[in-house]
């Protein structure tokens, strides 16, 4: 099984060191505040429903950009202004998975959201966040399939 992308491992390790819940929340909010939505050269509104994350109340969208070296860059849009957790996750995924080997991105399981946000997520919230990871994972798998043809 492929290892996880190094930057993602580092991010999860760094968050695991933040044992205080309030501090972890503040760290994630700081990340959310760094959110930049998908650049217009990649996608413009109205975004395609093909890019919409299913079961995500934050109305998140995932976009991929193929790079010349065969890796992918990931971009996000979050339409719900209350989607703070979705924005924090988008910043983590964009920063940690863009440019990583697709084999490693394909190995990222959706349940990493619990390592990032902690166990106190409602089912609805965890569903939406896991679906975001699931869409990124699916894009990496598609890229691998196309490479193998």
């Amino acid at each position, binding site marked *: 099984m492929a290892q996880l992308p190094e930057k993602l491992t580092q991010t999860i390790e760094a968050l695991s060191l933040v044992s205080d819940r309030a501090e972890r*929340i503040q760290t994630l909010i700081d990340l959310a505040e760094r959110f930049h939505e998908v650049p217009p050269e990649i996608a413009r509104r109205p975004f395609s429903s093909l890019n919409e994350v299913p079961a995500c*109340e934050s109305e998140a969208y995932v976009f991929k950009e193929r790079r010349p070296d065969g890796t992918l860059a990931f971009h996000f849009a979050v339409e719900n*202004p209350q989607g*703070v*957790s979705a924005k924090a996750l988008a910043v983590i995924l964009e920063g940690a998975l863009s440019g990583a080997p697709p084999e490693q991105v394909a190995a990222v399981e959706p349940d990493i959201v619990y390592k990032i946000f902690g166990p*106190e997520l409602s*089912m609805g919230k*965890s*569903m939406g966040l*896991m679906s975001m990871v699931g869409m990124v994972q699916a894009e990496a798998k598609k890229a691998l399939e196309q490479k193998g043809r």
Partner: protein
Amino acid sequence: MSEIESRGYAHPEALVSTDWVAEHQKDPGIRLVESNEDPLLYSSGHIPGAVEVDWTRDLNHPVQRDYLGREGFEKLMRRIGADKDTTVIFYGDRNNWWATYALWVFRLFGHDKAKVMDGGRIKWAKEGRPLTKEVPSYPETQYRAPERDDAKVRAYRDTVLKHVEGKGKMIDVRSPQEYSGERLHMPEYPNEGALRGGHIPGAANIPWARAVNPDDGTFKTAEELRGLYENEAKLTPKDDVIVYCRIGERSSHTWFVLTQLLGYKQVRNYDGSWTEWGNLVGVPIEK
């Protein structure tokens, strides 16, 4: 007559508008409480003066599947600087879903001085009203909590079973897919689901969010709500009604609508809901 009063609710005083909150947010007799699904939302900005009540840490029993007990509620009220005379105004994300859940738990301890800010957090934010990251601190009160009294607003499985046998009225507030049994659990989340799909026999399906206007998250008028619950689900105000969903949170929203906005006298929330019923051996299920 205020705009909320003009909607014809049985208890219009159960709702306050964002304008009212803006005018009264510093009144010493009120406490604003934000309750959200998204754990990051309160810390990222809340109405000045509002405290957070978190559904997992503050309202649930830490070990058992149950709500907090008398001591826990007493500690919570003291922490947020509230006593028996404090009017608690709840608001939050997701159309006030979690706000009404918190209000319902407060009712288990008889705290009736509780209202909901119509439209919730998103309405306040969309109106360009101020949000702050500053967490307020209130002097701890000497509040003494009564024992929790579940009888009036909460139903357990044995009560529900008798209710089914007596052909009592029930509302299943889950999605049509969950109601029909087409969806047994959320995808990729089987441990939170149930072994059987469907609904409790006799329950009508009115998804909880149909009670709010999708544009601004405010509650629909009494006439529109009667259209849902009385014309579609065939309830009458004199009915003894049990509402349920998956774990009792979405149905607390419907409990609020039926008891506060339509004035139904006997509505209980079955918080065991489908995660209990769909796993019970031998209970009747309809698809």
